[in-house]
């Protein structure tokens, strides 16, 4: 008996912008480097962005519906972003300040089962999200990856995203479930260009509410934020999306795919030991890390399914299918 689930809903997925053209603008003030036009969202949607910055100079900011969601200086490229955006018609536009060149803009809509999100908006207070419990064909959901994308600016001043222990000018920090955490990546504004951004991807339990609180040193700093969670998106850290529960001697399958990036993805069965000697002795099965579409399968002949652990990682990738073949 083969039981399979498609957790990446391809029937709801679509490419909205796919423009390879290189656009340049060399002006020392903010202005539009290219307006990619409007896209129509028939429901609240996860927007997936990927683009290339060709000059690591000056500053760039991406706007959705006229509101900045991301900034960068081009030292990290290609750029991958997720944003959970309200239904409607929204404009996609890139601005730059200084010498700028961008290309290969790709924007689309993706959708996953079990997803929840807080729509992209100006931060006004604590955000609380719960991914609901559900039993999948390979076991009950356990953890989801929660993604926070923030943009911040302070009029005519610097703005900085703060990690634990930082004390920076016009700092902006994030607390998850009441505890301050480090951002995974930060683009600071140290030249008063009114554009800073940061993101966080973390693994948190399903079935209970998780809170996200932004703290600002300066009340005049404006923070835009979107939070999205699903068991099926991948983070740089290991996530255990499901507590495996199926018949012994069955073969487990998972398919991992690119989402807003095509990272090297990892899928492992086992657990880091009290004294670790590396993956080869911590895990009973390790899929060969790969880009593109990657399948991991393992038959539980000797190793117990119950009390076993399956973890995945690969920032900007996702899980598309899970399956089990029970004898």
């Amino acid at each position, binding site marked *: *008996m083969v*039981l399979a689930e498609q957790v990446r809903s391809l029937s709801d997925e679509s490419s909205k912008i796919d423009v390879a053209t290189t656009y340049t603008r060399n002006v020392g003030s903010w202005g539009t480097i290219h307006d990619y036009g409007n896209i129509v969202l028939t429901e609240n949607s996860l927007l997936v962005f990927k683009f290339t910055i060709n000059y690591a100079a000056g500053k760039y900011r991406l706007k959705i519906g006229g509101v900045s969601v991301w900034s960068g200086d081009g030292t990290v490229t290609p750029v991958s972003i997720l944003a959970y955006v309200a239904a409607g018609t929204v404009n996609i536009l890139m601005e730059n300040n200084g010498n700028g060149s961008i290309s290969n803009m790709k924007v689309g809509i993706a959708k996953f089962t079990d997803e929840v999100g807080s729509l992209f908006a100006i931060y006004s207070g604590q955000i609380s999200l719960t991914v609901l419990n559900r039993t999948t064909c390979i076991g009950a959901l356990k953890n989801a990856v929660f993604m926070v994308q923030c943009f911040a600016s302070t009029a005519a001043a610097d703005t900085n995203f703060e990690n634990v222990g930082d004390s920076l000018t016009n700092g902006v920090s994030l607390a998850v479930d009441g505890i301050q955490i480090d951002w995974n990546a930060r683009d600071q504004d140290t030249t008063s260009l009114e554009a800073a951004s940061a993101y966080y991807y973390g693994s948190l339990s399903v079935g209970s509410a998780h809170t996200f609180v932004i703290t600002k040193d300066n009340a005049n700093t404006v923070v835009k934020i979107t939070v999205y969670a699903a068991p099926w998106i991948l983070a740089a850290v290991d996530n255990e999306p499901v507590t495996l*529960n*199926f*018949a*012994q*001697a*069955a073969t487990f399958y998972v398919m991992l795919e690119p989402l807003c990036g095509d990272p090297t993805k990892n899928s492992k069965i086992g657990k880091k030991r009290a004294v670790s000697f590396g993956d080869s002795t911590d895990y009973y099965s390790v899929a060969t890390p790969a880009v593109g579409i990657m399948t991991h399968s393992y038959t539980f002949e000797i190793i117990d399914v119950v009390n076993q652990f399956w973890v995945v990682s690969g920032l900007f990738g996702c899980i598309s299918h899970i399956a089990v073949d*029970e*004898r």
Partner: protein
Amino acid sequence: MTVTLDSKTLDCKSLGEGAEVVASRWDVWVSGAFKRKVKVRGLVRTWTLDCVENSVAWASSQAKSFEDTAAAGTTVTFAVTDEVRVISTTVYILGVAIQAADLAGKNIRYFTLTLQEA
């Protein structure tokens, strides 16, 4: 008992219901003893309906209509209302068995439908 299938009211003389547990089994050795474990995946409900038609032309027959639906593989609504039980669900038609009889010049058609919950 009122029985309707695909919005057609049947002259149903009897209704049988089955529930098959779908599960995988494997053998284990626990505390010095052999055991056979079972992982139940779910339940598949089936129904058998014994129905009759009296002097109905084949072109207008419910049995023919249900044969056509079964061949198309589409799901249909199924509802039963009686004094102790209400069923309201969607089903596949997996079988139509027909037995025709000529009773005192009347064209009697008995047919048995096999249904599975969709």
